[in-house]
């Protein structure tokens, strides 16, 4: 055990002292920030140029219902003869919205036409349809002699109260938080496995190419060396993540205290209906914030954190021992590609299944099955846990994960043991299988 500690220590120090590690640790938050600013900036430029849409309202039914905003600018060309308007629109507008003159307004139901060579965005179509709908509805109401004002007044917007058998109140928006939280953890595990698994592999290859490996394993068991590498590298990784988390949180805190109030105010002042609506939603969110926080507190935080730790350890060790075996089997990184594919596949599968099935139905069959399969469970189960997973499922999944982990480590250490002493040839799958029996 003492030797394992020595190896862990050396691997950790070697990794942490590495220039690329230091640079990556301090540069990547900066790169990340820079990228977000760049994206934000580009998006803001993009918004400045509103899509120009020409409107030809023959019967003057719209009566200013279409309001230009940041995204779209409507220009009324109804004064021109239709052909001229169409010609102008085709030349200098994105498209032409044609509202024909009909005998009855109700005839417009399926006659409003949008002419453009560019396909219209779903949002735009929805907006236009909404405007037309409301005009036609109002017309219908008037035709039936109903008092629109009274009807508007009579309208009620209800809200479904969600609660659990325990009596706790749930919030609807909390689902997004749950999805976000689950994905964050699942994604974090995947990234960590890929990045640090690769580091483990590189470290193994380095010992092989330096030809020090035989000297080391004449002093320690190959298994100890492998585990030492895996643990040492993961500790370096955890340190890196910790630094990022601290930097991230402090930047977030600084940013919100300095700029938070200002941006909120500015968005309010440039009031247009859309922004107002958004602001209203925001203020609604603000009033609900304590509720959200409460709900957040009601999330199985302890379960999430404890299972994150277990799935993190299980998943990372499972995969990084495979990375170590691959490193041992090959002489250089280029040769490793063919063996890496089967490792990355289940990871990607886990993430995709998480994105597509867990979000829709966190307790559906697919999500449940893949949260049991050890190669995907660290990702899929973590995505499910915020939605509340029965404890027995977590336990079964963890038993499967750690059982497989032990089997895989055994299997990997066999390949590792043989591979580290093999030089000069690129092994085939068949040879790897043979090594298991040595």
């Amino acid at each position, binding site marked *: 055990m003492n030797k394992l500690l020595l190896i862990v220590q050396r691997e950790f120090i070697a990794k942490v002292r590495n220039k690329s590690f230091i640079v990556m640790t301090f540069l990547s938050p900066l790169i990340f920030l820079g990228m977000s600013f760049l994206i934000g900036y580009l998006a803001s430029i993009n918004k400045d140029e509103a899509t120009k849409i020409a409107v030809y309202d023959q019967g003057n039914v719209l009566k200013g219902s279409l309001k230009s905003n940041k995204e779209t600018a409507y220009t009324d060309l109804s004064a021109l003869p239709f052909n001229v308007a169409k010609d102008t629109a085709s030349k200098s507008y994105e498209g032409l919205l044609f509202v024909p003159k009909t005998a009855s307004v109700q005839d417009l139901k399926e006659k409003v036409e949008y002419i453009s060579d560019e396909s219209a965005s779903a949002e735009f179509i929805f907006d236009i349809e909404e405007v037309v709908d409301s005009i036609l509805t109002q017309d219908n109401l008037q035709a039936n002699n109903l008092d629109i004002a009274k009807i508007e007044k009579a309208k009620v917007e209800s809200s479904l109260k969600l609660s659990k058998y325990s009596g706790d109140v749930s919030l609807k928006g909390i689902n997004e938080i749950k999805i976000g939280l689950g994905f964050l953890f699942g994604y974090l595990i995947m990234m960590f496995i890929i990045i640090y698994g690769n580091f483990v592999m590189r470290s193994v290859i380095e010992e092989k190419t330096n030809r020090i490996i035989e000297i080391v394993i004449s002093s320690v068991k190959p298994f100890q060396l492998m585990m030492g590498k895996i643990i040492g590298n993961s500790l370096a990784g955890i340190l890196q993540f910790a630094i990022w988390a601290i930097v991230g949180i402090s930047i977030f805190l600084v940013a919100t205290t300095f700029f938070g109030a200002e941006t909120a105010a500015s968005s309010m002042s440039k009031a247009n209906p859309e922004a107002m609506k958004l602001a209203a939603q925001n203020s609604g969110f603000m009033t609900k914030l304590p509720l959200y926080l409460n709900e957040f507190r009601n999330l199985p935080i302890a379960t999430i954190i404890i299972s994150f730790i277990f799935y993190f350890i299980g998943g990372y060790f499972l995969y990084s021992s495979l990375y170590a075996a691959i490193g041992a089997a090959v002489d250089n990184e280029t040769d490793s590609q063919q063996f890496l594919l089967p490792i990355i596949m289940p990871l990607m599968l886990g993430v995709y299944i998480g994105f597509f099935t867990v979000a829709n139905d966190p307790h559906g069959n697919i999500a449940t099955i893949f949260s049991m399969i050890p190669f995907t469970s660290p990702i899929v189960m973590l995505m499910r846990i915020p939605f509340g997973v029965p404890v027995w499922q977590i336990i079964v999944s963890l038993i499967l994960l750690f059982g497989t982990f032990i089997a895989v480590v055994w299997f990997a250490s066999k390949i590792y*043991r043989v591979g580290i002493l093999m030089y000069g040839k690129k092994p085939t799958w068949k040879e790897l299988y*043979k090594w298991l029996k040595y």
Partner: protein
Amino acid sequence: MGFIFVTKALSLTLITTKKYVIMNNILEVKNVVKQYGDYTALNAVSLNVPEGSIYGLLGPNGAGKTSLIRIINQITLPDAGEIILNGEKLNPNHISMIGYMPEERGLYKSMKVGEQCLYLAQLKGMSKQEAKKQLKYWFEKFEISTWWDKKLQELSKGMAQKVQFIVTVLHNPKLLILDEPFSGFDPVNANLIKDEIIELNKNGTSIIFSTHRMESVEEMCDYIALIHKSNKLIEGKLEDVKREYRTNTFQVGVMTQNIEGLMYQLTQKFTIGQTDFKSLNDDLKLEVQLGNHTTNDLLSVLTQNGQVTHFAEKIPSVNDIFIQTVSK
């Protein structure tokens, strides 16, 4: 056979003290078998390495030397057979007793020399303080104390070799196993290392050399074993093996007026061959195989016909024995 000689020596010591017999061999390899899939790398190989000896483990490439050495170093396990080191069955505690310099050797390129040596010494079971003390001794001995904080990649190849050797012997191993020790060493370093090995041996370290370079064996080893195609073919004291392989051939040099007469008389009794030893004043230089005659028979023929200036038994070189056995 030399083998008989060894048993005799053993039975002699057996009478004196029993403990001595056990301690007599630093390493005993008993019927060790190692297979890789269908390929047999070691076929029931047995070896006895006497304590305090320099033991040459010879064999062509692929004979199984490295497989055996890896088993002794507990890098791999034998499929059958057992290894006795220092009187005990091989166990993890033995790691600190063995110093191993593999054929494929190197060090961490981006690690500092001193830290690297400390790390490897600690892996061998030394405490940090002890390792530091020993390192100081060796660094001063090799006059490389200034390299402590240098990274290995800043050193030349020759410099790195010195560090490599220090790493091997730092923990004062009782048994030193050197696989092709001089390959890759420049002549100056090779000599330096050779002297160190001999000094270590004088201080009681047993040494196993694995090599296919015969000159170094001839010069340094007192025991040899030959492994070929997974089997041990020869083992014993160097002189005994040589005695075993001698062909009763003598190299003679004679000053004579009567070359033809002498040649005639010699061919009657002996088998005669060409020779190539260096001499200044011989009229006739020959290699004579005695057959069932004695040296005196040969000498009498020679002295009757001239002045004997050179007379020496042709001792088979390890190289000869090696080639002879391997090509059999």
